[in-house]
């Protein structure tokens, strides 16, 4: 993938607002943001209810995903353009999720909702109507999804990229600082993981930095481009943002997102954990 076929600008979105084959989808951490105003024609996906199994900690299965997209009027040959708040954290998560289930044409709005708002572009509270479709998903593409055992095996072998803030990496905070800090799991990071906060990849307005800048950031942080990579954060959304950068913008092969992330790893019995700012030994 490249920037040209995985990312669109706010201007491009504005020019395609009336294109029936372009489906705008808003996905936000704050699941009420859409209700207060959204880009005209955009539908909403709620990451907590639409994209998560409501009993087990896992994603909705293939049949549930098919029913979800069919009901919301998304067709297999639609161009899906995702955007959201928090610099596209959850939109990038949904992008990765659409890729996981094999949607062909999916893109991110560069800068997401913040860029759109800072540009003073129009938001509406009008709800769109889309005719139901018959959506067919593929089996999950686990070449982009890492699970806990392969993450433990990757210590000292693959690139592990911890994309949380330096204070979360070091164990000084347990969650992003807009959330309460009381958490069940231990603090710290996976040994040998490089700390490259997702935010290093984004400008203040939420747009992605240039490919040259991005390549330099990860190279300087010690990412070995000849190795496979697993990115993780706390629950897998910020690491989707970094997965998008490495895989879709920079075209790196074999990049996985570990969606279990720190809430799983930091609760595992018997695995090694490093505290402090150093990566630690395997």
């Amino acid at each position: 993938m490249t920037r040209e076929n995985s990312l669109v600008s706010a201007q491009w979105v504005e020019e395609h607002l009336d294109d029936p084959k372009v489906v705008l989808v808003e996905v936000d951490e704050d699941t009420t943001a859409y209700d207060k105003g959204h880009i005209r024609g955009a539908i909403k996906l709620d990451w907590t209810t639409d994209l998560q199994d409501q009993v087990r900690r896992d994603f909705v299965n293939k049949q549930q995903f098919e029913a979800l997209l069919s009901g919301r009027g998304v067709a297999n040959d639609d161009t899906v353009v995702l955007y959201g708040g928090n610099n596209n954290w959850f939109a990038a998560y949904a992008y990765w999720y659409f890729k996981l289930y094999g949607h062909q044409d999916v893109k991110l709005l560069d800068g997401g909702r913040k860029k759109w708002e800072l540009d003073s572009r129009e938001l509406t509270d009008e709800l769109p109507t889309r005719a139901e479709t018959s959506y067919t998903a593929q089996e999950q593409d686990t070449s982009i999804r890492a699970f806990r055992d392969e993450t433990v095996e990757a210590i000292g072998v693959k690139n592990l990229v911890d994309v949380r803030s330096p204070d979360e990496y070091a164990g000084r905070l347990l969650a992003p600082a807009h959330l309460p800090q009381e958490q069940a799991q231990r603090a710290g990071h996976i040994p040998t993981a490089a700390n490259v906060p997702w935010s290093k990849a984004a400008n203040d307005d939420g747009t992605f930095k240039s490919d040259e800048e991005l390549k330099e950031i990860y190279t300087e942080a010690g990412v070995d481009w000849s190795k496979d990579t697993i990115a993780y954060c706390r629950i897998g959304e910020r690491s989707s943002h970094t997965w998008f950068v490495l895989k879709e913008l920079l075209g790196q092969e074999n990049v996985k997102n570990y969606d279990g992330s720190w809430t799983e790893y930091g609760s595992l019995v018997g695995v090694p954990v490093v505290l402090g700012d150093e990566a630690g030994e395997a």
Partner: protein
Amino acid sequence: MCGATEGGLSLDGIDVKKEAIVQGQVVRDGSPVGNAYVRLLDRTGEFTAEVPTSATGHFRFFAGDGEWTLRTLAPKADPVDKRVIAATGSIAEVVVAI
């Protein structure tokens, strides 16, 4: 229990004693700005978190002990940086004028 500042965001259900809270309001000419973004930068200037302001211009972070910078972005305004000290068990109140 409600320990929030009058007119601010509710702290119901949050154990304030365990949190180092930084919160406040973004205003322009004395009026609340409901479409701003406030970023929390750590002592090295690294991004730590970001929130959109509420309809009443309010924002809140659960930081750690120490010095932080709030960077506020809003339509048709230059970014504004404000330094703030957070401490566990207390609430640092900040008004950001853009």
